[in-house]
């Protein structure tokens, strides 16, 4: 099937990069770009395919990161097992938050606000509790080996994150060709019409949240393995939430490659900005914010969002709906 062949090609191409270059700069760029893709893809599952905009996706990221660290530091777990725990915990958080929100019918802006509130609650708790290292955060001791998921060369991390990105891509492709994905998008487009033909919106949205949370959590776990450090701000702060959603929106929500394209674009843009203006604090985010505003104003379907309309009433604005590629 077309999607899976494209994914295979992508994985082979990107996966072979470490064989062609040993440059730390290039490998670092590829690694961080893939990391951004992972976050955007995770958000895309709930936001793009499910139509539920989360403004606090860092909630899952931070959970994954903290579990990854705590499992190793407090429980002596093997990092590969910890990864599974991290993904599992993030999925659980997704289950709880999703169940609460959708059980009480939260949609649109309210849902966005609630996710933001949850992320903040987690951040404050992480800041106040000794178990998570409070404000100081937690560090992962350095011990390079494959079994310890710490690699001497960036190449190892590139392949690790590529693996996670592949998981995300395959999940997205599955959404595009499965009944669950069809149901999810139907709920996004018109919840009542979907209910009338047998779709259970609660279950569908709930599972989308679980999957999205799990993937985002894997990103958090990866982050900790690379940087060997996490604190409440990095874990649950708005930076990650924003990066995930802007990447998906800029690239095109509800598509397979949109988040990849978007995250890559933003990453390149951030790098270019950094080279032009130096390491100014906050310059990245200014760019992200500006791009978000511009995209929503002029290209709401994103760069490759061919079929996703950000307009609910197609009869009102048919011409804008057709403006894309």
């Amino acid at each position, binding site marked *: 099937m077309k999607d899976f062949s494209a994914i295979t090609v992508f994985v082979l191409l990107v996966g072979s990069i470490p064989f062609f270059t040993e440059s730390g700069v290039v490998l670092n760029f590829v690694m961080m770009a893939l990391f951004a893709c992972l976050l955007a893809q995770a958000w895309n599952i709930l936001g793009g395919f499910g139509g539920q*905009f989360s*403004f606090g996706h860092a909630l899952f990221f931070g959970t994954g990161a903290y579990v990854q660290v705590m499992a190793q530091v407090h429980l002596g777990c093997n990092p590969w097992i910890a990864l599974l725990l991290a993904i599992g915990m993030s999925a659980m958080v997704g289950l709880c938050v999703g169940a*609460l*929100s959708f059980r*009480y019918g*939260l949609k*649109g*802006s*309210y849902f*966005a*606000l*609630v996710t*933001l*509130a*949850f992320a*903040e*609650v987690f951040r*404050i*708790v992480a*800041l*106040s509790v000794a178990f998570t290292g409070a404000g100081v955060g937690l560090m992962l001791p350095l011990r390079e080996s494959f079994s310890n998921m710490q690699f001497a060369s960036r190449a190892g991390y590139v392949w690790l994150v590529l693996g996670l990105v592949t998981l995300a891509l395959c999940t997205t492709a599955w959404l595009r060709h499965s009944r669950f994905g069809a149901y999810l998008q139907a709920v996004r487009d018109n919840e009542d019409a979907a209910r009338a033909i047998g779709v259970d919106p609660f279950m569908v949205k709930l599972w989308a949240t679980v999957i999205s949370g799990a993937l985002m959590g894997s990103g958090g776990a990866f982050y900790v393995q690379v940087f060997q450090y996490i604190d409440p701000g990095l874990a649950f702060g*708005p930076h990650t939430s*924003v990066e995930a*959603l*802007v990447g998906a*929106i800029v690239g095109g929500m509800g598509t397979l490659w949109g988040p990849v394209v978007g995250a890559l674009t933003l990453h390149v843009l951030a790098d270019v900005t950094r080279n032009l203006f130096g390491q*100014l*604090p*906050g*310059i*990245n*985010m*200014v760019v*992200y*914010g*500006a*791009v*978000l*505003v511009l995209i*929503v*104003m002029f290209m*709401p379907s994103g760069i490759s969002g061919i079929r996703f309309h*950000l*307009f*609910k*009433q197609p009869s*009102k*604005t048919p011409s*804008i709906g057709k403006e894309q590629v």
Partner: protein
Amino acid sequence: MFDLSILFASVLNGITTGAVYALIALGLTLIYGVLHIINFAHGASLMVALYGVYFLREKIGIDPYLALTIVVPAMFAFGYVLQRGIINRASHGKDENILLVTLGISIVLENLALLFFKSDTRNIETAYTLTTVNIGTAMIALPKLVAFIGALVVSAILLVVMRFTFLGRAIRAVAKEKHGARLMGIDVDHVYAMCFGIGSACLGAAACFLLPAYYVNPMVGSGFVLVAFTIVVLGGMGSFVGAFLGGLLIGVVESIGGLYLGESLGQVGIFIIFIAVLLFRPQGLFGGRT
């Protein structure tokens, strides 16, 4: 656990802080009640106003309370232009877009501030910063008392404008029935922008009252955003009285929460309330429209 006088002081503190929260929330309530949009840029706008007040004081020496005459109209213009120029054009008729655009604006504003002003926390010192007033057994900082009174006055003015002026009636008409209002010759886009302007002007006033007793840094806005939203939702989206009372309530909750749980966890209390209200009583305590 704590004796009554400490509790009393805490409550009083909470009320004065709450009044300023209420002022911030009032602007948001107006914007939500009329435009039906969640303005994520509200916190960042407050931050802009706070920096404005700060620099007027530090660079030009204008007292914050005098700065009211400058900051309030300036913020009004800021809000008007923001709505008319960017937000209106980006909405394309869908709520989610406005959500994203205001989020984008807040990110840009906050990080531009980070860029230009660094992340240092700044505050001003005036002749009256350390003055306190005795109320019963409690000592309240004078700036906080002034803030309380100022918030009351501004809220009253807002209510009068909404009730008795033509603009107020036009705003209420648009809030209730946009198309009908348009047919009656009301320029809806202008009214929207006016609301945004007024809401931002409230922020300008709040900033003038806030700075003497508080501080400013680029991230201060996001701290206020969720609190403001909590108040708006608690008060019943679109109800002024509700927002004001909600503000006072939240101020008191935060103060008492901080007393028993320490400052950070006290904040969690607010967010828990927020989540609880959204889930279980989205029409707020004072109900109105959902």
